[in-house]
């Protein structure tokens, strides 16, 4: 199963626009990454924070609703954060202009 995960990670990180993929566990610790470690930890912490906030806001507006994905577009990249039950995935890409 782990080989399958590695394979999927590699396939997506080979796309020209993808800067990096990070899989983060429920404690905001990166468990798999394709980027350099310090940056990974930085992204993981901030993404965890933002995801928690986003999730809370969605629940506040409608308690039956749940956040399924969050995309943050900035000047230089696009950050996509997808929460799952026990972990979340962060993908950083450079959208083609």
């Amino acid at each position: 199963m782990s080989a399958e995960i590695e394979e999927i990670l590699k396939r997506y990180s080979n796309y020209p626009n993808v800067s990096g993929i990070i899989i983060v566990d429920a404690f905001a610790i990166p468990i798999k990454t394709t980027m350099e470690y310090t940056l990974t930890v930085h992204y993981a912490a901030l993404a965890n924070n933002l995801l928690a906030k986003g999730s809370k806001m969605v629940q506040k507006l409608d308690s039956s609703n749940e956040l399924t994905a969050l995309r943050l577009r900035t000047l230089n990249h696009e950050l996509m954060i997808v929460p799952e039950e026990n972990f979340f995935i962060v993908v950083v890409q450079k959208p083609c202009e």
Partner: protein
Amino acid sequence: MSAEVEEMLKRFQALKNVVGIIVIDNDGIPIKTTLDNTLSVHYAATMQTLREKARQVVLDLDGTNEFTALRMRTLYHEVMLCPKDDYFIVVIQKPCE
């Protein structure tokens, strides 16, 4: 100019999947909305917090970067937040499945 704004709001609101559009100023007060007032104020308050959070995340990662859009996909809707200098726009849509 206000007629132009109204016209644009109406045009986008008429799109099939759009549930509502709210234009919110920097103090978190909805200045133009196509939803009812209570809901607008509720969205304005929650989105204001999220906008601040997202801004901080991006600034923390790279001081020269700025966030230009935030999309949150939830079970029932997709909420898009677009910050500008003096205001920000929130659009809520039901993505077609």
